[in-house]
Protein backbone atom coordinates (compact mmCIF):
# COMPACT_ATOMS: atom_id res chain seq x y z
CA UNK A 1 0.00 0.00 0.00
CA UNK A 2 1.39 3.43 -0.89
CA UNK A 3 1.51 6.30 1.59
CA UNK A 4 -1.09 8.21 -0.44
CA UNK A 5 -3.45 5.26 -0.11
CA UNK A 6 -2.77 5.01 3.63
CA UNK A 7 -3.54 8.70 4.08
CA UNK A 8 -6.70 8.72 1.97
CA UNK A 9 -7.89 5.63 3.82
CA UNK A 10 -7.40 7.31 7.17
CA UNK A 11 -9.00 10.61 6.26
CA UNK A 12 -11.88 9.48 4.09
CA UNK A 13 -12.28 5.97 2.64
CA UNK A 14 -11.91 4.09 5.90
CA UNK A 15 -12.52 6.95 8.32
CA UNK A 16 -12.68 5.30 11.74
CA UNK A 17 -15.70 7.31 12.88
CA UNK A 18 -17.76 7.58 9.67
CA UNK A 19 -17.02 4.25 8.00
CA UNK A 20 -15.64 1.83 10.56
CA UNK A 21 -17.92 3.26 13.29
CA UNK A 22 -15.19 2.69 15.85
CA UNK A 23 -14.40 4.82 18.85
CA UNK A 24 -18.00 5.91 19.29
CA UNK A 25 -17.77 6.08 23.10
CA UNK A 26 -15.33 9.02 23.24
CA UNK A 27 -16.65 10.45 19.95
CA UNK A 28 -20.23 10.76 21.15
CA UNK A 29 -19.30 11.83 24.67
CA UNK A 30 -16.84 14.62 23.91
CA UNK A 31 -18.18 16.20 20.74
CA UNK A 32 -20.42 18.83 22.32
CA UNK A 33 -18.19 21.75 21.32
CA UNK A 34 -15.55 22.34 18.63
CA UNK A 35 -12.81 22.86 21.19
CA UNK A 36 -13.59 19.71 23.18
CA UNK A 37 -13.69 17.73 19.96
CA UNK A 38 -10.42 19.15 18.69
CA UNK A 39 -8.66 18.51 22.01
CA UNK A 40 -9.74 14.88 22.15
CA UNK A 41 -8.90 14.47 18.48
CA UNK A 42 -5.33 15.68 18.95
CA UNK A 43 -4.77 13.48 22.00
CA UNK A 44 -6.18 10.47 20.13
CA UNK A 45 -3.94 11.15 17.13
CA UNK A 46 -0.85 11.23 19.34
CA UNK A 47 -1.87 7.96 21.03
CA UNK A 48 -2.59 6.27 17.68
CA UNK A 49 0.76 7.32 16.22
CA UNK A 50 2.69 6.10 19.27
CA UNK A 51 0.75 2.84 19.74
CA UNK A 52 0.91 1.96 16.04
CA UNK A 53 4.65 2.54 15.82
CA UNK A 54 5.52 0.69 19.03
CA UNK A 55 3.29 -2.27 18.19
CA UNK A 56 4.78 -2.44 14.71
CA UNK A 57 8.25 -2.30 16.28
CA UNK A 58 7.64 -5.42 18.42
CA UNK A 59 5.34 -7.20 15.91
CA UNK A 60 7.73 -10.16 15.36
CA UNK A 61 7.85 -11.08 19.04
CA UNK A 62 4.06 -11.09 19.48
CA UNK A 63 2.43 -14.52 19.28
CA UNK A 64 -1.15 -14.61 17.95
CA UNK A 65 -2.65 -16.10 21.16
CA UNK A 66 -1.51 -13.20 23.32
CA UNK A 67 -1.75 -10.35 20.84
CA UNK A 68 -4.96 -8.79 22.22
CA UNK A 69 -3.86 -8.57 25.88
CA UNK A 70 -0.53 -7.24 24.64
CA UNK A 71 -2.16 -4.54 22.51
CA UNK A 72 -4.31 -3.48 25.45
CA UNK A 73 -1.26 -3.44 27.69
CA UNK A 74 0.79 -1.32 25.30
CA UNK A 75 -2.05 1.13 24.57
CA UNK A 76 -2.93 1.55 28.26
CA UNK A 77 0.75 2.04 29.08
CA UNK A 78 1.14 4.73 26.40
CA UNK A 79 -1.99 6.58 27.49
CA UNK A 80 -0.88 6.51 31.14
CA UNK A 81 2.54 7.85 30.20
CA UNK A 82 1.01 10.65 28.11
CA UNK A 83 -1.26 11.52 31.02
CA UNK A 84 1.64 11.64 33.50
CA UNK A 85 3.73 13.81 31.19
CA UNK A 86 0.90 16.25 30.67
CA UNK A 87 0.20 16.37 34.39
CA UNK A 88 3.83 17.22 35.07
CA UNK A 89 4.78 19.55 32.22
CA UNK A 90 1.53 20.94 30.75
CA UNK A 91 -0.48 21.41 33.90
CA UNK A 92 -2.94 23.96 32.50
CA UNK A 93 -3.67 21.82 29.47
CA UNK A 94 -3.95 18.76 31.71
CA UNK A 95 -6.58 20.48 33.82
CA UNK A 96 -8.67 20.96 30.67
CA UNK A 97 -7.97 17.73 28.84
CA UNK A 98 -7.28 15.52 31.85
CA UNK A 99 -10.73 14.02 31.94
CA UNK A 100 -10.57 13.07 28.24
CA UNK A 101 -7.25 11.27 28.30
CA UNK A 102 -8.40 8.06 30.04
CA UNK A 103 -11.33 7.98 27.59
CA UNK A 104 -8.83 7.32 24.80
CA UNK A 105 -8.21 3.81 26.12
CA UNK A 106 -11.87 3.02 25.42
CA UNK A 107 -11.39 3.94 21.76
CA UNK A 108 -11.50 0.61 19.96
CA UNK A 109 -10.21 2.29 16.78
CA UNK A 110 -6.77 2.21 18.39
CA UNK A 111 -6.77 -1.53 19.04
CA UNK A 112 -8.40 -1.91 15.63
CA UNK A 113 -5.46 -0.24 13.87
CA UNK A 114 -3.01 -2.29 15.95
CA UNK A 115 -4.68 -5.51 14.82
CA UNK A 116 -5.36 -4.64 11.18
CA UNK A 117 -2.34 -2.54 10.30
CA UNK A 118 0.50 -2.13 12.80
CA UNK A 119 0.95 -5.84 13.54
CA UNK A 120 1.44 -6.55 9.82
CA UNK A 121 3.44 -3.55 8.55
CA UNK A 122 6.78 -1.83 9.02
CA UNK A 123 7.22 0.97 11.53
CA UNK A 124 7.07 4.00 9.21
CA UNK A 125 3.88 3.02 7.34
CA UNK A 126 2.32 2.19 10.73
CA UNK A 127 3.21 5.62 12.05
CA UNK A 128 1.68 7.27 8.95
CA UNK A 129 -1.41 5.09 9.30
CA UNK A 130 -1.76 6.10 12.96
CA UNK A 131 -1.47 9.78 12.11
CA UNK A 132 -3.90 9.57 9.18
CA UNK A 133 -6.49 7.58 11.13
CA UNK A 134 -6.12 9.99 14.04
CA UNK A 135 -6.61 13.04 11.82
CA UNK A 136 -9.63 11.42 10.19
CA UNK A 137 -11.07 10.82 13.65
CA UNK A 138 -10.31 14.44 14.60
CA UNK A 139 -12.11 15.61 11.48
CA UNK A 140 -15.22 13.70 12.55
CA UNK A 141 -14.97 15.15 16.07
CA UNK A 142 -14.59 18.68 14.68
CA UNK A 143 -17.57 18.41 12.32
CA UNK A 144 -19.83 16.80 14.91
CA UNK A 145 -18.63 19.20 17.61
CA UNK A 146 -19.26 22.22 15.39
CA UNK A 147 -22.70 21.02 14.41
CA UNK A 148 -23.72 20.33 18.00
CA UNK A 149 -22.27 23.58 19.32
CA UNK A 150 -24.15 25.67 16.75
CA UNK A 151 -27.41 23.88 17.43
CA UNK A 152 -27.13 23.76 21.21
CA UNK A 153 -25.79 27.24 21.95
CA UNK A 154 -25.72 29.22 18.69
CA UNK A 155 -21.97 29.85 18.91
CA UNK A 156 -18.67 28.39 17.72
CA UNK A 157 -15.22 28.07 19.29
CA UNK A 158 -16.34 28.93 22.82
CA UNK A 159 -13.64 28.45 25.47
CA UNK A 160 -10.88 28.29 22.87
CA UNK A 161 -8.56 29.80 25.51
CA UNK A 162 -8.53 26.46 27.35
CA UNK A 163 -6.67 24.89 24.45
CA UNK A 164 -4.84 27.81 22.81
CA UNK A 165 -4.15 30.10 25.77
CA UNK A 166 -5.31 33.62 26.46
CA UNK A 167 -4.87 34.87 22.88
CA UNK A 168 -7.86 32.74 21.97
CA UNK A 169 -10.26 34.18 24.53
CA UNK A 170 -11.86 36.40 21.87
CA UNK A 171 -12.23 33.63 19.30
CA UNK A 172 -15.79 32.78 20.23
CA UNK A 173 -18.15 33.47 17.33
CA UNK A 174 -21.77 34.15 18.16
CA UNK A 175 -23.75 33.02 15.14
CA UNK A 176 -27.25 33.41 16.44
CA UNK A 177 -28.11 36.22 18.83
CA UNK A 178 -30.80 35.60 21.46
CA UNK A 179 -30.78 31.92 20.64
CA UNK A 180 -32.51 29.95 23.33
CA UNK A 181 -30.61 26.76 22.62
CA UNK A 182 -31.59 23.29 21.58
CA UNK A 183 -31.01 20.92 24.45
CA UNK A 184 -31.30 17.81 22.29
CA UNK A 185 -28.09 18.70 20.46
CA UNK A 186 -26.14 18.92 23.72
CA UNK A 187 -27.41 15.58 25.05
CA UNK A 188 -26.09 12.13 24.04
CA UNK A 189 -29.16 11.49 21.87
CA UNK A 190 -28.29 14.55 19.79
CA UNK A 191 -24.83 13.12 19.39
CA UNK A 192 -26.18 9.90 17.85
CA UNK A 193 -28.55 11.79 15.56
CA UNK A 194 -25.79 14.18 14.51
CA UNK A 195 -23.39 11.36 13.70
CA UNK A 196 -26.12 9.64 11.69
CA UNK A 197 -26.71 12.80 9.65
CA UNK A 198 -22.98 13.25 9.00
CA UNK A 199 -22.64 9.64 7.82
CA UNK A 200 -25.64 10.13 5.53
CA UNK A 201 -24.03 13.28 4.14
CA UNK A 202 -20.74 11.50 3.52
CA UNK A 203 -22.46 8.61 1.74
CA UNK A 204 -24.56 10.89 -0.45
CA UNK A 205 -21.47 12.93 -1.38
CA UNK A 206 -19.76 9.72 -2.45
CA UNK A 207 -22.77 8.62 -4.51
CA UNK A 208 -23.01 12.02 -6.13
CA UNK A 209 -19.38 12.10 -7.29
CA UNK A 210 -19.22 8.46 -8.36
Amino acid at each position, binding site marked *: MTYTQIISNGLWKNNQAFVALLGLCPLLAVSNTVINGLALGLATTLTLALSNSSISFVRHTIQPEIRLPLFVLIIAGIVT*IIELFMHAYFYELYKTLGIFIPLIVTNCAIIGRAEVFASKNRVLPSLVDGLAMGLGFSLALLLLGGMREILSSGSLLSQAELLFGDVASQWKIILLNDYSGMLLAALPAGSFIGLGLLIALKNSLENYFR
Partner: protein
Amino acid sequence: MFAFRPLLTALRLAIFSIIIIGLVSFVFIQTEHKIQENEHQALLQSLQSLLATELYDNELSESSIQLGDITFFRAYKANKPSAVIIKSTTHQGYSGDIQLLTALDSNGTLIAVRILNHQETPGLGDKIELKKSNWLLNFTHKTVEDMQHSAWAVKRDQGHFDQFTGATITPRAVVNEIKKVGLFFHNNKTQIFPNLK
Protein backbone atom coordinates in the same frame (compact mmCIF):
# COMPACT_ATOMS: atom_id res chain seq x y z
CA MET B 1 3.43 -35.15 27.18
CA PHE B 2 3.79 -31.97 29.12
CA ALA B 3 3.06 -28.94 26.94
CA PHE B 4 5.72 -26.28 27.10
CA ARG B 5 4.38 -23.89 24.49
CA PRO B 6 1.54 -22.33 26.53
CA LEU B 7 3.97 -21.81 29.36
CA LEU B 8 6.43 -20.04 27.08
CA THR B 9 3.62 -17.87 25.70
CA ALA B 10 2.56 -16.92 29.22
CA LEU B 11 6.16 -16.17 30.05
CA ARG B 12 6.40 -13.87 27.06
CA LEU B 13 3.24 -12.05 28.15
CA ALA B 14 4.69 -11.71 31.64
CA ILE B 15 7.94 -10.26 30.31
CA PHE B 16 6.02 -7.69 28.22
CA SER B 17 3.92 -6.76 31.27
CA ILE B 18 7.04 -6.28 33.38
CA ILE B 19 8.64 -4.07 30.73
CA ILE B 20 5.55 -1.90 30.43
CA ILE B 21 4.98 -1.70 34.17
CA GLY B 22 8.64 -0.72 34.45
CA LEU B 23 8.24 2.03 31.84
CA VAL B 24 5.11 3.44 33.47
CA SER B 25 6.71 3.29 36.93
CA PHE B 26 9.83 5.00 35.62
CA VAL B 27 7.78 7.86 34.13
CA PHE B 28 5.69 8.02 37.31
CA ILE B 29 8.76 8.32 39.54
CA GLN B 30 10.31 10.89 37.20
CA THR B 31 7.19 13.06 37.14
CA GLU B 32 5.89 12.47 40.69
CA HIS B 33 7.77 15.36 42.27
CA LYS B 34 6.86 17.80 39.52
CA ILE B 35 3.19 16.77 39.68
CA GLN B 36 3.05 17.32 43.45
CA GLU B 37 4.74 20.67 43.00
CA ASN B 38 2.14 21.64 40.37
CA GLU B 39 -0.72 20.54 42.62
CA HIS B 40 0.72 22.45 45.57
CA GLN B 41 1.26 25.55 43.43
CA ALA B 42 -2.27 25.33 42.11
CA LEU B 43 -3.64 24.95 45.66
CA LEU B 44 -1.64 27.97 46.84
CA GLN B 45 -2.84 30.02 43.91
CA SER B 46 -6.47 29.14 44.47
CA LEU B 47 -6.17 29.80 48.22
CA GLN B 48 -4.74 33.24 47.50
CA SER B 49 -7.35 34.00 44.85
CA LEU B 50 -10.16 33.35 47.31
CA LEU B 51 -9.19 35.90 49.95
CA ALA B 52 -8.35 39.55 49.42
CA THR B 53 -4.79 40.18 50.64
CA GLU B 54 -5.92 42.72 53.25
CA LEU B 55 -7.90 39.97 55.00
CA TYR B 56 -4.89 38.03 56.28
CA ASP B 57 -1.20 38.32 57.05
CA ASN B 58 -0.21 34.71 57.74
CA GLU B 59 0.96 31.87 55.48
CA LEU B 60 -2.30 30.17 54.52
CA SER B 61 -0.86 26.83 53.43
CA GLU B 62 0.92 26.41 56.79
CA SER B 63 -2.06 27.16 59.03
CA SER B 64 -4.22 24.21 58.14
CA ILE B 65 -6.08 21.94 60.55
CA GLN B 66 -7.73 18.65 59.64
CA LEU B 67 -11.09 17.62 61.12
CA GLY B 68 -12.32 14.32 59.74
CA ASP B 69 -11.76 14.45 55.98
CA ILE B 70 -12.13 18.24 55.78
CA THR B 71 -9.12 20.57 55.75
CA PHE B 72 -9.39 24.09 57.16
CA PHE B 73 -6.89 26.77 56.13
CA ARG B 74 -7.07 29.46 58.81
CA ALA B 75 -6.51 33.11 57.93
CA TYR B 76 -5.38 35.54 60.65
CA LYS B 77 -5.01 39.29 60.60
CA ALA B 78 -2.87 40.70 63.43
CA ASN B 79 -3.22 37.32 65.19
CA LYS B 80 -7.00 37.54 65.17
CA PRO B 81 -8.97 34.96 63.13
CA SER B 82 -10.33 36.66 60.05
CA ALA B 83 -11.45 33.94 57.68
CA VAL B 84 -11.22 30.26 56.87
CA ILE B 85 -10.88 28.34 53.61
CA ILE B 86 -12.39 24.88 53.74
CA LYS B 87 -11.14 22.19 51.40
CA SER B 88 -13.62 19.36 51.13
CA THR B 89 -14.75 16.62 48.78
CA THR B 90 -18.27 15.54 47.91
CA HIS B 91 -19.06 12.08 46.60
CA GLN B 92 -22.49 13.13 45.29
CA GLY B 93 -21.21 14.29 41.88
CA TYR B 94 -22.45 12.79 38.64
CA SER B 95 -19.12 11.14 37.85
CA GLY B 96 -16.56 10.88 40.59
CA ASP B 97 -15.69 13.21 43.42
CA ILE B 98 -15.89 16.99 43.32
CA GLN B 99 -13.23 18.80 45.35
CA LEU B 100 -14.03 22.33 46.36
CA LEU B 101 -12.71 25.27 48.35
CA THR B 102 -15.17 27.33 50.37
CA ALA B 103 -14.02 30.61 51.92
CA LEU B 104 -15.98 31.97 54.88
CA ASP B 105 -15.28 34.95 57.12
CA SER B 106 -15.10 34.40 60.86
CA ASN B 107 -18.89 34.89 61.20
CA GLY B 108 -19.52 32.08 58.73
CA THR B 109 -20.59 34.36 55.85
CA LEU B 110 -19.51 33.08 52.45
CA ILE B 111 -16.74 34.97 50.73
CA ALA B 112 -16.23 32.76 47.70
CA VAL B 113 -16.36 29.19 46.43
CA ARG B 114 -14.06 27.52 43.90
CA ILE B 115 -13.97 24.07 42.36
CA LEU B 116 -10.55 22.45 42.62
CA ASN B 117 -11.14 19.17 40.81
CA HIS B 118 -14.03 17.38 39.19
CA GLN B 119 -14.86 14.95 36.41
CA GLU B 120 -18.35 16.20 35.57
CA THR B 121 -19.64 15.98 31.99
CA PRO B 122 -17.92 18.54 29.75
CA GLY B 123 -20.47 21.04 28.49
CA LEU B 124 -23.15 20.09 31.02
CA GLY B 125 -22.01 19.61 34.62
CA ASP B 126 -18.77 21.51 34.24
CA LYS B 127 -20.56 24.87 34.49
CA ILE B 128 -19.69 24.69 38.20
CA GLU B 129 -16.25 25.95 37.11
CA LEU B 130 -15.89 29.70 37.25
CA LYS B 131 -14.01 29.49 33.94
CA LYS B 132 -17.16 28.27 32.22
CA SER B 133 -20.01 30.07 33.95
CA ASN B 134 -20.76 32.57 36.70
CA TRP B 135 -22.92 30.15 38.63
CA LEU B 136 -20.50 29.91 41.58
CA LEU B 137 -20.85 33.64 42.23
CA ASN B 138 -24.41 33.03 43.45
CA PHE B 139 -23.00 31.99 46.80
CA THR B 140 -21.08 35.18 47.59
CA HIS B 141 -22.27 36.97 50.77
CA LYS B 142 -24.64 34.19 51.77
CA THR B 143 -24.92 33.82 55.54
CA VAL B 144 -25.31 30.98 58.03
CA GLU B 145 -29.05 31.81 58.21
CA ASP B 146 -29.32 31.34 54.44
CA MET B 147 -27.70 27.93 54.77
CA GLN B 148 -30.14 26.89 57.50
CA HIS B 149 -33.12 27.98 55.38
CA SER B 150 -35.00 25.35 53.38
CA ALA B 151 -34.49 27.34 50.15
CA TRP B 152 -30.79 26.37 50.22
CA ALA B 153 -31.29 23.92 47.35
CA VAL B 154 -31.46 23.83 43.56
CA LYS B 155 -34.73 24.92 41.92
CA ARG B 156 -35.66 21.32 41.12
CA ASP B 157 -35.70 20.73 44.89
CA GLN B 158 -37.84 23.85 45.54
CA GLY B 159 -34.77 25.94 46.37
CA HIS B 160 -33.48 29.13 44.80
CA PHE B 161 -30.23 28.06 43.11
CA ASP B 162 -30.32 27.44 39.35
CA GLN B 163 -29.52 23.98 38.08
CA PHE B 164 -28.00 23.61 34.60
CA THR B 165 -29.81 22.51 31.49
CA GLY B 166 -29.26 18.77 31.35
CA ALA B 167 -27.46 18.55 34.69
CA THR B 168 -29.10 18.70 38.10
CA ILE B 169 -26.98 16.26 40.06
CA THR B 170 -23.77 18.30 39.81
CA PRO B 171 -25.10 21.64 41.11
CA ARG B 172 -27.12 19.80 43.75
CA ALA B 173 -23.93 18.14 45.02
CA VAL B 174 -22.14 21.51 45.20
CA VAL B 175 -25.06 23.28 46.91
CA ASN B 176 -25.32 20.51 49.51
CA GLU B 177 -21.59 20.41 50.13
CA ILE B 178 -21.34 24.17 50.74
CA LYS B 179 -24.18 23.93 53.24
CA LYS B 180 -22.53 20.97 54.94
CA VAL B 181 -19.12 22.57 55.41
CA GLY B 182 -20.58 26.02 56.18
CA LEU B 183 -22.72 24.68 59.01
CA PHE B 184 -19.91 22.39 60.16
CA PHE B 185 -17.67 25.44 60.54
CA HIS B 186 -20.44 27.31 62.35
CA ASN B 187 -20.94 24.47 64.83
CA ASN B 188 -17.25 23.71 65.41
CA LYS B 189 -15.81 27.20 65.39
CA THR B 190 -14.19 26.94 68.81
CA GLN B 191 -12.36 23.83 67.76
CA ILE B 192 -11.07 25.41 64.55
CA PHE B 193 -10.19 28.77 66.11
CA PRO B 194 -9.48 27.92 69.78
CA ASN B 195 -8.79 31.54 70.69
CA LEU B 196 -11.99 32.93 69.16
CA LYS B 197 -14.43 34.29 71.71
